[in-house]
């Protein structure tokens, strides 16, 4: 017994509907992209980063001002420092300890280096450099 099957016309209709759904969602994405582009226009890359990451990037940028590119920093904090390591490069960020209370010890053991980690309310904390 022959089976019933949808005609190519029916498939075409579904394809057209699927394209219309995508087109509608694309208009929304374009609108969002336009809004971001307008907000970012004319800003420096640093200002755009600040716009996207807020306080964290402000802390990292401030740290970059203080720490020379040749410096070594020790990460002493329980959180992972992935974004921090990206933005601090070429400064060398070394794994210190996940225990924030070990910071004084690290400062004593590595005079001249920097000790860095997250402080209260997620702000970046840093201390060190040449005495």
């Amino acid at each position, binding site marked *: 017994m022959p089976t019933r099957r949808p005609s190519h016309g029916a498939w075409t209709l579904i394809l057209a509907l699927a394209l219309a759904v*995508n087109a509608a969602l694309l208009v929304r994405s374009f609108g969002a992209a336009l809004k971001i*582009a307008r907000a970012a226009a004319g800003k420096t890359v640093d200002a755009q980063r600040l716009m996207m990451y807020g306080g964290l990037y402000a802390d990292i940028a401030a740290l970059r001002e203080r720490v020379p590119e040749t410096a070594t920093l020790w990460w002493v904090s329980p959180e992972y420092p992935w974004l921090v390591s*990206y933005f601090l490069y070429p400064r060398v960020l070394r794994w210190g300890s996940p225990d924030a209370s070990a910071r004084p010890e690290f400062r004593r053991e590595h005079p001249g280096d920097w000790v860095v980690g997250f402080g209260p309310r997620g702000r970046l904390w840093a201390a060190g450099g040449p005495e």
Partner: protein
Amino acid sequence: MSGSRLAPFPAWVTAFAVATVVAPFLLFAGNLLGLPLGRATAGGSLLLAVLVAHARFGGAAGPAPERGARRPWSWTRGLCLLLLAFAAATALLQALSLPLYHWDALVLYGFKAKVLFSAGTFRTPAFLDKGIVSPNANYPLLIPYLEAGFYALLGRVDERLVRLIFFAYWLAYLALVHAELRRPLGEDAALAAAALLGTAPLFFRDDATQAVSGSVDVAFAFYWTGAVLAALRAREDGDRRGLELCLVLVLGGLFTKPHGLALGLIPVGLALSRRSLRAHGPSIAVFAAAAAAWVWTRHLLPDNVDYVPRTVGASMLTAAWSRVPVVAGAWPRELFRRDHWGLFWVLALAVIAAGAARRRLTSPIRRILLALGAQLLVYTAVYLAAPNEIGGFLDSTLSRMTIHLSGLAAVAAGWTFELL
């Protein structure tokens, strides 16, 4: 199905595929031999890669499509082109208005690219010293080398312009699917299918799935889809270019994502035969040597990848078993998410199901479905075995994994549609 149905890739897609694999690999090989990455080596490797593409694959453009190709204009074609142009404009706007900022783009790839550009090599403490914060130092380096080569040619790090590389991958991915469907379906339907894939909402979300986010998933999908299609062509036609292109694309996949190594065995298995091993031994040896060089180097780099279990024991198997319903339910939820895929998967799966019900699935279609099934199994196994908290892991990765499946699904659905 005769071999003639399997269209060779468009010349520019082949050149793009070969250049984006060979140039980073030459830079990597240069580093192994002590040659640093710089403007001269970046330019030289790109030139050499283009020459290789021309010498080995030049003139591989296929014959004209059979159906509907000569029609100069149709509303369908016009509307699809308009939609694709609108999608391209959206992607370019996203790429050029902000520097790279998505997590993986910076942490996994951007960091390595900055190190490669600045130090000129991966043989530096940022990669080799386990004491230095370097996220997943042993992660594949194709995209970081491409980005670093781009920076070297530019003479500076530009995290905005570098996003154009990812735009090119998105375009090449769509061109690949379009070319594969053009012969059996004709220009209009092939363009409509490419537009349906290319305008899938997740490619334009503010997420790592975004085509120009700087994540490597569209690039990986391009290599994987191309490798399987080239393998089918090599199998059908015994074609030297099909086999070599397949091997180059497999190399691209394993140098782009860690699971590219396991998945690469599928197209290699499809493409190789005793006859091809005898006939194309030198090409296969070059491919094997290049793959081995990366796999060995990766083995030497520090490993802090957190999704691979360290030990396999009874507790891990029990945990994996308890995850089966979660992972099995997550796949269909993702595939049918309208804000990610629109109706792409509904349509693709319905067409394939209709073809299966009417016993119209030819052997190349079945082979594609086999490759997709194996891919699904590999990903599911990773989700079951990973030590991560499964809910968060699925949320942050599953949508990107479905991108890898989408090109082959579109081709399988298109080929099936012709037979309905």
